[in-house]
């Protein structure tokens, strides 16, 4: 069972979520501030971080950036709907997904599982490492290298890249990507996709302004290549 | 607003258009009458006053028959003139529709004229003067007055077989139709419209009326 670190300042939420997840078998550690959370991170070594955006002192976005500086730990933000701006900033800062409060435990757990789920292995007959231009994608080892240099990709970025490269030149709509990569509903928040694509481009493209690998088809969605 | 401007426009139109062209007028007096030359002149002829079909006093001037033979004669005397008046219009006068309107005179000698007070004359007629109409009286008065003097200003008192009338002056030359009056009541003898130059005559008429002392109303 995954180990979850929950950083949440409100005691009732903290306690409620902790209780719910623990009953479902998760090992849960909680922290009430960003600073305490970062400290617990090193010691607890969680598989996933549940991060409230509105925190006293160091806020969720700052925590998120701090974590992303040296880790590809899956991060799910807890947010209240209406704080739309924060969601975008959180996603830009590297969060993989977000959950709108209030949420039932089953919803939270489903998201956790979705983020942690590995992209299905490609069928037999495909090489372990695929080369797309200067990119080397290792589907088994879940690593991506550009010009031999390994890229640090967050889980959602990795999954998105793997999904797109699994069918190069095929166009995926945002809704399809939401369903397959994030396991959201078809009608989910397409900003998740857009933010993730932006982050991914910053890491793999030579000039993110005119992308080569992840191309936009206006009115339809995204596709990988053609190179 | 619209009704008011319509009224203004209508008034304006009336002012502009209604006054256009040549409008009619009432009868407007304009200057004196036309003075014509008559001959023989009144002073040298026999002046008689006849009447028109409209009841107006119509002067006629006849040549004096004896004038040519007797240039120094003092003119026809009142009895002669009165007799001529009673004799009626001549043919040419009758052609113009003039009549005398007087009864027949019983005899020529019966007319007598004697001086009366204040330069007046009393004429005695052999008829009943009470039966005469106003116009007839006036014909007589004027005819006698113009016989007595050229300007016909002499007051005349008519005496008939029945009575004597109040003295009268042949005066009212403004409204011939309403003359004469047998009595000269003060109100009747002061016609307001008399022309300038006739004041003297009016004065004398007033005087005559006062002399009578007893102006009895008609």
């Amino acid at each position, binding site marked *: 069972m995954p180990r979850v670190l929950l950083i949440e300042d409100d005691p009732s939420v903290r306690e409620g979520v902790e209780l719910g997840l623990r009953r479902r078998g998760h090992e849960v550690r909680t922290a009430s501030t960003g600073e305490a959370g970062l400290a617990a991170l090193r010691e607890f070594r969680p598989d996933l971080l549940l991060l409230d955006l509105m925190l006293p002192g160091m806020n969720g976005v700052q925590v998120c950036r701090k974590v992303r500086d040296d880790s590809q730990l899956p991060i799910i933000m807890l947010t209240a709907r209406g704080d739309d701006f924060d969601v975008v900033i959180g996603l830009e800062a590297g969060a993989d997904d977000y959950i709108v409060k209030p949420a039932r435990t089953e919803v939270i757990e489903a998201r956790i599982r979705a983020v942690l789920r590995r992209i299905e292995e490609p069928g037999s007959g495909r090489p372990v490492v695929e080369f797309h231009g200067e990119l080397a994608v290792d589907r088994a080892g879940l690593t991506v290298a550009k010009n031999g240099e390994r890229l640090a990709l967050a889980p959602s970025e990795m999954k998105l890249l793997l999904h797109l490269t699994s069918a190069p030149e095929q166009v995926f709509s945002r809704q399809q990507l939401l369903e397959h990569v994030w396991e959201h509903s078809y009608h989910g928040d397409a900003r998740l996709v857009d933010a993730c694509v932006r982050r991914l481009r910053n890491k793999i493209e030579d000039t993110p302004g005119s992308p080569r690998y992840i191309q936009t088809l206006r009115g339809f969605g995204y596709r990988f290549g053609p190179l | 607003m619209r009704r008011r401007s319509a009224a203004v426009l209508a008034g304006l139109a009336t002012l502009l258009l209604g006054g*256009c062209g040549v409008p009619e007028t009432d009868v407007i007096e304009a200057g004196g009458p036309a003075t014509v030359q008559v001959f023989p002149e009144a002073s040298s002829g026999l002046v008689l006053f006849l009447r028109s079909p409209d009841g107006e006093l119509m002067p006629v001037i006849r040549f004096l028959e004896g004038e040519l033979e007797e240039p120094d004669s003092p003119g026809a005397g009142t009895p002669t003139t009165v007799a001529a008046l009673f004799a009626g219009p001549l043919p040419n006068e009758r052609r113009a529709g003039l009549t005398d309107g007087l009864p027949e005179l019983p005899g020529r000698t019966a007319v007598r004229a004697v001086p009366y007070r204040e330069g007046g004359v009393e004429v005695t007629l052999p008829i009943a003067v009470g039966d005469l109409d106003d116009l007839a009286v006036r014909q007589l008065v004027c005819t006698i007055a113009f016989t007595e003097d050229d300007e016909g200003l002499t007051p005349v008192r008519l005496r008939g077989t029945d009575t004597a009338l109040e003295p009268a002056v042949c005066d009212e030359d403004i409204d011939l139709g309403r003359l004469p009056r047998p009595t000269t009541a003060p109100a009747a003898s002061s016609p307001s419209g008399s022309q300038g130059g006739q004041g003297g005559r009016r004065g004398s008429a007033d005087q005559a009326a006062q002399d009578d002392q007893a102006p009895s109303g008609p």
Partner: protein
Amino acid sequence: MRLRRTAGERRRPFGLRTRLVLAFLLVAAVSAGTTAALTFREARNAVLGTAQDTAVASFREQVQQLGMELPQDPTGLQDVLRDIARKGKPHPWYVYAEYGSIRASSAAAPTSTVITPELRRTARSNPHGSFERVVKDGVPYLTIGMPAVFRAGANRVMPTGLVLFAVMRMSEEQAGVEALVVAARDGALPGLAIALVPALVAARSVLRPVRELRKAALSMGSGRLDTRIQARGSDELADLARTFNESAGQLERSVDELQQAEARARRFASDVSHELRTPLSGMLAVTEVLDEEAERLDPDTARAVRLISAETGKLAVLVEDLMEISRFDARAAELNTDEVDAAETIRKTLEHRRWTDRVRADLPEGIRARLDPRRFDVVVANLVGNALRHGGAPVTVRLRTAAGGDGTALLVTEVADSGPGIPPEVLPHIFDRFYKADAARTRSAGSGLGLAITLENVRLHGGTVRAANGPEGRGAVFTVEMPLRVGEAVA
């Protein structure tokens, strides 16, 4: 000046400018007309007076040339009259004479029809010349009566009984007078034309402030309540401008207060929802625990626990909906549009909620639409959910495109049920917040905000939603019309 007008506004047949100019011209016309009329009358009277005086004097002169016997001899009279007639001044005239029963004239008939009885009476009873203007059959005549007198003695004149009349046509005078009218008119009309210039200038000076007022009023109407007019001078229009400014100031203050009050109310609703959400988050996270443990509790406690769990869920939905409505009210709702396949979008909505087998879908393929998928999902889900809850099966969702009134392509979504339909008195309120069709019904399964949120979402797309009953009066039909390509149609 053309005013934009709302329907039903009554308009005078003439604009203010026209009326001002007309009034000005009227004044100009009245003064010009009066002046012209007075001048005309004076001139006419002068013309006529000259003609009359000349005629009367000349007639008297002619008559005075006469020598006559008394009585007048009728035979020579006509010759005399013709002689006088020839010497008519200023125009030829007909001369008539009356003496006793004699009637003679220079014309064919011995008497004239133009001479009035009044003139005859005056001439015969009054030793004065007199005249009368008579209009007969449109022709003006001057008729003169002239009694002839003779001199008796030195000072006295006596009437001869002869009265002469002259009848003179005044055609020339009439022509002259008409020329005067023409002259007056020709003088007045250019005057009026010239008066048009100051009239327009005056109208302009009056209308400029009026136009400013109108612009300001329009500006106010379009929401710029800080609009003010520069009030110059001290005339009525300046007063009006000042009054406008004061009123505008008061209006601005009132609107400001109202807006502040409304904003406070909205913020309060938003704050309340927000504050409710935090404890709800904790509660909702543990409802699962309650549900699972309830089985092991004694029945009463179990019921209580399940009740709390269920109501917590509903409360969470209600709070979410309240938050959503607050965002609409605060105009904070954002539209995140994307290109989607319309049929696919609706199909996913039904699949997601497991309604596929309860709802008949008539969804033609290939309709690409630009919309906010999440909000469109809410719209369809609310309408279908409402139909499933309150209407009767089967529920049908139809999708089609149509052309809007202004030519834009519309995406039309129809949700119909087979229930009893919506009572007519409910129809106007069906999209109201917390509106309960049945007052006796305590609470519906939804939050009571579903259709209100639907309406707001459709509006956010620039579309409309309406509720009606089906053709046979059975079954409610909700029709959503949105631009096919939201955000692109509006250039």
